[in-house]
């Protein structure tokens, strides 16, 4: 029996449809789990937390959802080593839940994806994220090549990694900086960063390597028709581009 992936939906989630569809098209046995069915989350083997504005981003993006009972199951699974990927709002929730970078205790975050800088506005921009860790350091990225460059869309108002200097040092020292913003050719510079994020951070991984939090949305540049200029093969509906990360996620489960 293949591993079952849950895509939990909180009040305010908005990217669940494309996330679950692309996971399925990448071979995953994925399904939406609505908040009214949160008690069934214990039955799943892996989790992908989709984007949106769970609980209206009240307090801080992800802060309320991190304390939702749906997260009890996700946290328990993560602690036991199951795979968890959070995208955008999902990533914010994972940080607020203390799972990523995971240098503090649960639900006591040591870092946050917070208000963009220098201009504190929502930004929607096509970006590339470059893998900065050894692929095997994180189960989700294990089948990506070294230094992989993944196309995606940044679409958030709170995506800037912020933490105390001490916690930022822990992120680097503990090799938690999984993805940084880059150009298409892999060059890394400030111009590639859409939100003023510390280290140009686009994604963080926990110590065990089973929980990955990324701000940009690979699923929004995840099919040939979303990037016709970079079409791979004849089928314009086929997963490609950012879908590479979803494939890697699914492969890690098999």
């Amino acid at each position, binding site marked *: 029996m293949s591993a079952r992936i849950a895509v939990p939906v909180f009040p305010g989630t908005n990217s669940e449809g494309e996330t679950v*569809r692309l996971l399925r098209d990448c071979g995953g046995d994925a399904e939406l789990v609505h908040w009214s069915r949160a008690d069934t989350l214990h039955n799943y083997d892996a989790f992908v937390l989709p984007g949106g504005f769970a609980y209206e981003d009240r307090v801080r993006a992800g802060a309320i959802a991190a304390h939702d009972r749906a997260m009890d199951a996700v946290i328990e699974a993560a602690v036991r080593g199951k795979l968890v990927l959070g995208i955008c709002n999902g990533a914010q929730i994972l940080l607020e839940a203390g799972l990523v970078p995971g240098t503090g205790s649960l639900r006591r975050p040591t870092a946050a994806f917070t208000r963009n800088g220098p201009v504190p506005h929502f930004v929607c921009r096509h970006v590339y994220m470059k893998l900065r860790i050894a692929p095997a350091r994180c189960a989700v990225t294990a089948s990506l090549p070294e230094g992989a460059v993944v196309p995606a869309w940044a679409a958030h108002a709170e995506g800037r990694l912020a933490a105390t200097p001490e916690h930022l040092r822990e992120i680097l020292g503990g090799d938690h900086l999984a993805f940084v913003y880059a150009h298409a050719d892999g060059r890394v510079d400030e111009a590639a960063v859409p939100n003023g994020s510390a280290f140009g951070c686009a994604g963080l991984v926990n110590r065990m390597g089973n929980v990955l939090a990324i701000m940009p949305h690979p699923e929004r540049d995840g099919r040939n028709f*979303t990037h016709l200029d970079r079409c791979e093969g004849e089928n*314009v509906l086929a997963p490609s581009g950012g879908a590479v990360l979803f494939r890697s996620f699914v492969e890690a489960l098999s």
Partner: protein
Amino acid sequence: MVNLRDDELSRIAQRLNREPTLVELHAFDAAWSEHCSYKSSRRFLRGLPTTGSRVVLGPGEDAGILHLGTHEGERYGIVVAHESHNHPSQVVPFEGAATGIGGIVRDVLCMGAEVIAVADALRFGTDRDNIARGVVDGVGSYGNAIGVPNLAGDVYFETGFDENVLVNVVALGVVKESEIIHSYVPKDGAGWQIVLVGKATDPSGFGGASFSSLTLDARDAELNKGAVQVPDPFFKNVLMRASYRVFATLRELRIPAAFKDLGAGGIVGCSSEITAHGGYGATIDLDAVNVAVDGMPPEVIAVGETQERLIWALPPEIVPEILRIYNDEFTLPEVAYNACATVIGKVTEAPRYMLRYRGNVVMDVESNFLAGSVYDELPYTETIRHQSADDLAAVDVAELLPRVLAHRDVCSREPLYRRYDAVVRGATVLARGAADAGVLAPVPGSLLGVALAVAGNPRYGKIDAKYAAQQAVVEAMRRVVAVGARPIGLTDCLNFGNPRKPEQFGEFVAAIDGLALASTALDLPFVSGNVSLYNETSVGEAVPGSAIVACVGAIEDIGRVVTPGLKTPASALLWIGSRELTAGGSVLGELLGIDGSLPAIDYDGERAAAGIVAEAIARRVVRACRVVSDGGMLTAIARLAFDAMLAGRCVGAELDFGNPFCETGGFVCEIEETSWIDLTGVLRVGSTIAQSDLVVNGSRFGVAELYRVWSQPLQELYP
């Protein structure tokens, strides 16, 4: 404040054979407002073509529907609605614009559709930065939160909009044509229950419809803030998803239903129309309405325009399940204070509309009299605008090109639209700004695509409303053609001045005439639309006449859309379409201070040009394409060069052309050198080159430098 006129009041008293109650007064005030009743505009709107082979549902319900195509034996329709939210946006820009998006989304949702895109056409003044920022943030915050991408739009800045901005919004949905839900109770609907779903009714938005039908007086702005509704996109996100679940249940059980947005006129407006349009009456119990505060007067509960509410009319046997979905499965009461789905009344065979409150009947009128026809036969005069025809001297391209690119109507809109989510739903093929129209794939697993563009140039509107309306249709159509879509239908929003001033009303009448002319000539029907009158300044001047048009295009294979930017050196650059050298209404004319004549509109030529471009795209010889619009042909080519540069391709263009800034229309295409010889009616204006330069009449510009000039100006307004 009730804005009914004396003759309307006496007509009501006469028909009721008594003095109306306070609730009735407010109900008629809303229902008979210009905003709801179209009382002065309706007789002219009848002149618009609304039928055609692609029309699944024309004007009359909350949104129109166009046939998109067939996938796996299912016919799919595109639901489209178009509205203004002008006055609220002037008073409270953020909330006004956000509730504009919120309202148009409900209009599409209630047809049984999944909402797939929004668009915004904005007309700002030149000195109200707080309004220009607030509106954009309002549009963005709402669409972003509900998870609907912003696919298309435009923005113009004119002093004529300083005191009265225009905020027009469009929404698209997708629905199987066999699963459309209508906005009226169908036959055998007597005895159905009326279910109100959404946020608890509160005192916000009381008098909104009436407010939108008045001239906005700056002195009253503070007073009128109470008439603006409060947006709640977070709640709407949940409400939409819960409604999708309800759609699925109704389809599975094959149960008929009617669904309608609560917009102008609140509970009375919506429940009276959903029943009256089916030939029924209704009895509503105001005590059953879930309210946010105690002690609200019945007229506020009855006609207040609290946002994020809809009304269902449902057969009684399904009602418990629908209430369960909204209240238990999607936990509406936990998502917003006292929000829920609840039964508030029933559909009656007798066509009377009755409201009860605390045991008393507070309203009892004939349904048709309330929701039916009020007419104002207002006089209008035709204005012939002065038309001079200054000769166009040869222009200094080198001096003008940077000025044209930096012009407020030409420069990059990216600082604005990058605040909008362009790609949520993961179905966007061409995001806003990438091309002249936005394109997305509305049906998962299908190659079908839908294109959307808006147009309505106020520089033309200042000169001649009828001409501007025609150009709006033509340009919206061209934009859709330029990405490789087949234009299939239109919507319009007519933003004009005071209908009680004959010369201002004359502009409105002329604009409809223009829309009808263009629509007929191009065989593109209008399937929905909206009228916004009383757009005038404190000294009584009308805004530049603005017939804003949206065009929907159908695409059979999204793999064949024309992608952004020049592709390869040594291709031919062709101008296809009308090429009159006139400066009237153009950016060039403004920069040079020329009051030139307007380019003639030649519909045969337009159809031919669109046909040539469509055929060339179908033959896959078009490498890039843009319409000639604000800033002229050279601006179009510059933008193709910008997109090539941004994609990392080293391609520029070289051309010789006397005056490349005329905005006479048509298309510029990059076409393979050997593939264009057999195209008729095209003019070769130049070639692409292997440097990232634009070489015009011997002057050389670096594309990167021109891009800097073009991309900077709006960054100050939208940092």
